[in-house]
């Protein structure tokens, strides 16, 4: 039996149109976008309510030597998101970040998985998939709109 199936679909859907929400990070080339993250995931031991902010750091990297197509570096940081177990009141964390390199595109579906776990119980970690359906300003790398969907795997 293979165990690569997605399960527990339909955890939460959040739409956030982020015009005007992007802000320049300390590096001139990196643009940070804060994405509100509110979702409820059904874990194996209890249901967990997550709230906070996911941060997308995006950067267009040009190949000014060979002239190849630009690449987008995307850092998805979930450290601003915490969860609370609805039964126990325990605190849950989401680990990361995820660092991705993708071809520069005006639209991209960024699907990344993250572990979430209670306290320091790393071996009890479970997996959430976060899908950021992004529109980008291809000149700056800024996220102009994003739709976030989460899924417990």
């Amino acid at each position, binding site marked *: *039996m293979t*165990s*690569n199936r997605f399960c527990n679909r339909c955890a939460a859907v959040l739409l956030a149109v982020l015009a005007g929400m992007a802000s320049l990070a300390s*590096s001139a080339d990196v643009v940070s976008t804060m994405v509100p993250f509110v979702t409820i995931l059904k874990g194996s031991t209890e249901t967990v309510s997550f709230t906070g902010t996911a941060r997308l750091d995006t950067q267009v990297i040009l190949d000014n*030597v*060979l002239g190849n197509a630009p690449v987008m570096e995307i850092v998805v940081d979930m450290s601003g998101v915490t969860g609370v177990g609805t039964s126990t009141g325990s605190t849950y964390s989401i680990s990361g970040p995820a660092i991705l*390199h993708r071809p520069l595109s005006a639209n991209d579906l960024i699907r*990344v*998985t993250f572990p979430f776990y209670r306290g320091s119980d790393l071996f009890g970690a479970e997996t959430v998939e976060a899908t950021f359906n992004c529109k980008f300003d291809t000149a700056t790398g800024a996220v102009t709109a994003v739709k976030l969907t989460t899924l417990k795997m």
Partner: protein
Amino acid sequence: MPFFLDRKASPNRVREAEDARRNRQEIVKALSQGRVSRRDLIKWGVFTAGGMLAWKHGLNPFVGSAYAEIPTGLPASPLFGVLPFTTPMPRFDVLARNPLASLTPAPTAQANQAQRDVPAVLGGGTGPIEGRPPGPIWAHQGFDVFPPKVAVQATQEGATTNGVYNPTVPSSLNSGIDPTQPIPLRFHPGLPTQSPLAVWTFNGTIPPKLVMGRYGEPILFRHHNRLPEDESQNGGFGRHTISTHEHNGHHGAENDGFTGAYFYPGQFYDYHWPIVLAGFRTINPDATDRRAGSPDGSGGIVKVAGDWRETMSTHWFHDHMFSFTSQNVYKGNAAMFNIYSALDRGNEAIDDGVNLRLPSGTANDWGNLDYDVNLMLADKAWDANGQLAFDIFDFDGFIGDRMTVNLIYKPYFEVERRKYRFRILNASVSRFFKLALSDGSPMIQIANDGNLLPSPVVLTELDEQGIAERYDIVIDFSRYPVNTRVHLVNLAEHEDGKRVAKDLSLAEALSGTSSDPCVGRFLEFRVVRDPAKPDVSRVPDVLIPNPDLSAVPVARHRTFEFGRGATQTTNDPVSAFFGPWGIRTDSGPAGTLAADFGRVSAAPRAGTREIWTLVNGGGGWDHPIHIHFEEGQVLARDGLASNVPPWERGRKDVYRLRPGGSITITLQFRDWGGMFMEHCHNTVHEDNAMLLRWEIDDGGAPFLRPLPTPIPTPQGVTFRDADDVLPTAL
């Protein structure tokens, strides 16, 4: 643009691509045998000055096909009907640890200059039996203080059948493999056996070799070169001279596998690996701290000098032959080295307040491999006859189309329902990996580049893993019922050797739609049973904190920019090389320089600490930069400490720049001296010619400033003055 021809490509197109590859192999062969130089190829218009293969039909794999099929590409390596996950993955083959007295002749502090007859094909006359440069500068440092206690020997030779496989675990923990059965050298039982000219491995055999050592027990590794004396007998690629780098041993430079300290067929080289904790001269010099220790063989600890926070665990060793590292490592010159310590002793049951009790086993005092598994990942390619093939399309990198683990094509591995540690080495030439489990389950990363992290990090997708990086992870298979099959999956899609083209989502990677054949599932874990004994292993919240450097002043800042368009300012026919890649040091006026192992680019003062910033000089590629000798700590990425991800907050020896990025690290230069290297570990970049020499040369006699450059010949090693010393080096 897809790199490899689609499976549905027409026979005519495949034939055409095969013809083009054959033409390119003629170029590789001529280069590998020294019959032509890169300058010649550029002069003849075969390559551009930028290192790109000329846009010629019948040569460049991306020139439009005569059959008008677009896109074009490379011919796929034939599988001869072999299916994935149909053969077991063998554990590493552990090299025997013998008494020092087993070595004949006995090792000596200075290179053994006893003479032997040199074959005519190597110039005739006589030459030394040991290829190590002679004299006091290349004598083993600390040979009297840390005399070798264990002898390990291996040959480098052409492919042959293994009749003495020693996995050190029972067959039940090795997917049922019977170690008494001969193992022909082939990537799968259904694939052709490799010829002795196609593959050159340690002892000429597979599985890959593993050395097991422990702190306080110095090893004398005697490496015999038994490759063909005639350099044209190389199967089309590979160079018969070798230099063995123990990556990243804290040893004297004479044992580091310096790129210019290579040795010839018929010679041996004695590498003295003292296996000491860095800082042993000044930190815990009286060996009073139990955390700075080694397994004593009977459940206790032998205390050793040095900083316990410099304890290392997962190393590998490989060829470092100047300009030929990529071909030789690809051809099989790669092995691993597990180092055991009081902290990481390879016994999960001993509860002494020091041992971290990581997944391993319990039968032996140290070094149990039952649940501690080495994985060597490497992409390969082979020709129509199934023989290992190395292609050349440009000097950006080489990408294979067949994934191997421990040199087996897409194998399976049986596991019990418990925790396992996997020591994952990226042994590719140019390929980066990004790993996940096929069901998205979490993994716990405990080490990076052989160094246990300050704290474990739980991840569902590992970071990109550059060439030569080692990631140690723990997977808990107790979450799966018996008979589950779960896979390791590669998410990093390549289009060429420059960098990852696209990090895929797990769903994308599993979809089978990637044009990169090495994306997707490549290792199948089969959960076969419950463990016979309870799993008592642990992954503590605290592993090994970083050494505290706050009291160590910073002596210098240096900057190294890695880029293209290098120039060469020297012309030594042996030590200087020409290639599109290079390194600019401290924004020097000479610009980006191509490699010359006779040039000194940096010479830190012995006993100091420096801060080095490594900069990617262009956005079109990535470079995994390896700095030899002592582990560094990452201070910042792109200028910010907050950009350093948790899995890079320990010690490291390979630093991925990322496209367009920079990384700032701090390093100490202590305990040993001599000439070391810094280079890109995309070994095609390294060979063409992104490598520099730095040295610690101010420690007094026998060292000189600068150090003379060794120039090996079969008749003996001579020395020349350094070609060049950069103005900011000293």
